[in-house]
């Protein structure tokens, strides 16, 4: 599902990623761990083309990305199959919760409004927020917003989900409600890549762990081995 071979990226003279390769993430939950500035988030953003890279290549959900500028059409196809959840949620503040969830199915998949609404409500139900469908994102707590963001990404029925430190902008009290949703997804067999600092969460959820240090893979392997 996800393969990365010798991917390198520089910003100016700074090597952000240096020949990163990743193979064992065929399905399951891959945790990207490492110190701040080690390149975890940049690597994750390379996976859906929000960042370009200079050398190497990667394949996600059957879509191949090459070095240099990406072709918009390729990215649009890839992103239908790859959902992303951001550290800061990035919900659309001018839309209601349900409209946040249904925007992509309606505009990208051309789903009928009524059908999109049914799908959206089911997803909100699943993250425990069906009663907030008509609310504005700004009226929700951080944990609720992040759960809406997960529902929004799931609405495209992605084959791969990317999580960029999904709980680091949250109070500890709200972390659990978000992690529970992610762990549920993992149990259902959703392939995902999670950038996280949360050792306990990685231990609970991850099947494969990649540890980055200064843009290089320090070590990687099955979660049980690496995190023990």
């Amino acid at each position: 599902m996800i393969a990365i071979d010798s991917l390198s990226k520089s910003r100016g003279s700074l090597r952000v990623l240096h020949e990163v390769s990743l193979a064992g993430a065929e399905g399951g939950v891959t945790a990207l761990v490492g110190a701040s500035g080690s390149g975890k988030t940049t690597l994750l953003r390379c996976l859906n083309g929000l960042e370009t890279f200079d050398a190497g290549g990667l394949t996600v959900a059957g879509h191949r990305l090459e070095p240099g500028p990406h072709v918009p059409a390729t990215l649009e196809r890839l992103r239908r199959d790859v959902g992303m959840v951001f550290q800061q949620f990035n919900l659309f503040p001018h839309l209601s919760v349900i409209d946040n969830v249904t925007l992509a199915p309606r505009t990208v998949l051309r789903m009928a409004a009524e059908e999109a609404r049914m799908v959206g409500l089911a997803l909100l139900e699943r993250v425990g927020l069906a009663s907030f469908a008509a609310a504005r994102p700004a009226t929700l707590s951080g944990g609720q917003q992040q759960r809406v963001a997960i529902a929004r990404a799931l609405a495209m029925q992605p084959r791969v989900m990317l999580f960029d430190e999904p709980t680091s902008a949250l109070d500890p009290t709200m972390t659990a409600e978000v992690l529970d949703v992610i762990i549920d997804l993992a149990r259902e067999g959703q392939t995902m890549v999670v950038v996280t600092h949360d050792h306990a969460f990685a231990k609970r959820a991850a099947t494969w762990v990649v540890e980055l240090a200064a843009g290089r893979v320090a070590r990687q392997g099955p979660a049980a081995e690496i995190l023990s």
Partner: protein
Amino acid sequence: MITTSPRPVAPWGVCALALVVGVATAGAAELDEVRRRGELVWAADQEGGGPHVFPASDDPTRLTGFEVEFAELLAAELGVRARFQQGQWDRLPLLLGRSADCVINGIELTPERQRDYRCSRPYFAYALQLLGRRAGPLDAFERLSGPGPHGPWKVGVLTGSAAETVMRSRSDLDVEVVGYDGTLDSLEQVRTRVLDAAVMDDCIFTFYADRFADLRTVGRPFAGGLYAVLTARDTPELAAAIDTAIGRLIADGRLKSLYDRWDLAGRQQMLLLRDATEIPAAPSRSTWDLVRETLPLLVRSAGMTVLLSCISFPLAILLGLAVAVGRLYGPPILRPLLTGYVEVLRGTPLMLQLYAIFFLLPKVGLALPAVVAAVAGLALNYSAYESEIYRAGLKAVPLGQFEAALALGLTKWQALRHVLVPQAVRIVMPPVTSDFIALFKDTSVCSAITVIELTKRYSVLALSTGRIVELAVVTAILYLAMSWPLALLSRWFERRLESGGQR
């Protein structure tokens, strides 16, 4: 000369004139064209006032004046009806071959005009008259040769008129000549002692003498000249027909009886007699009557103001949004072009743009009606400002919003349409509203291309009634009555956008 223009003739106005002069349309068939149309369209500026062309005092919707009657006589001689075309006095010749067949508005015969246009044989002889305060120290024209009580005599004239040319050329006089844009501005300034004297066509002062009862003529007229009908250079047949017609009007006495009817000679006599023995000025109308008579006209012109702004601003917003999006997200080759578009439209005066649209586009075959040209000019001009506001608004939307939309599989344009633009619109609401109010007031510039809106109507009525202050208050109230609800509406809209769901 007569008349008033709301602002001085700027250098670019002269440029526009130079561009247009000598390029007039039509051929030798222009006389046939007038006959076929059944109308002789004559241009004048009713703001120039009496006795030439001005709104009738008993019915401000009707124009009167000796030139109105003269134009009707002239048209009848050609076998057609006369139709009035409003224009800004100093730019009336620009309308030739465009929206008028001829100009009849106290246009003095000068060598320059004879070079650039066809000037008819004269139809009126004017004389230049020196005017001063009754009790003032200036009691004879000859006194101007020596110094006044406080240095050179300060003498007011209408900018661009023959009076100005003559006074500035008299090096034998110890005078400081001050130019004004309004016909009667200099008289007001003499009355308030800012000036020592004024010089203007005698018929104008004679006409308004009652309003300026505390002023008097000083000596006999000291210079003079002739008014002629202007036609375009390339309309020889029309010019010849007009000459013939004027000749007949002079020969058979109809022109004289017209001038007798307007009492253009007799009133001067009366004035001399009046000046000899103090006679109080006639009482003026009550403010209530004034408002009742002028309000319908003012309200109708306010309708034009509303029409211009309510059509042009939505266009400006759409155009501005398109330009802003193009500059930020469009193809790289397009961006410098759009930047140029914004800078050219922001960096040149709105009036020049209106000129280009109304006077120059017809040269390339695109003749727009004045109102359409006005809407187009306002929309283009304001689109440049709106695009800058939208550009700032789009940049103010956090990058994460764009990324989140792209990550969901939306294309760049879908992300703009559904995520960035709706948020930018909310951000820029306050400055856009204030621009709408600005445009609303800028519609007054459109009088330069013959559109009569509220400000122009005010100027015309203020001059013809002499009730400058009262009418200014009424006009200001009308503007406020229109712009205030607008501000309230946009504030309501803003609140709605902040709270409600718009999708």
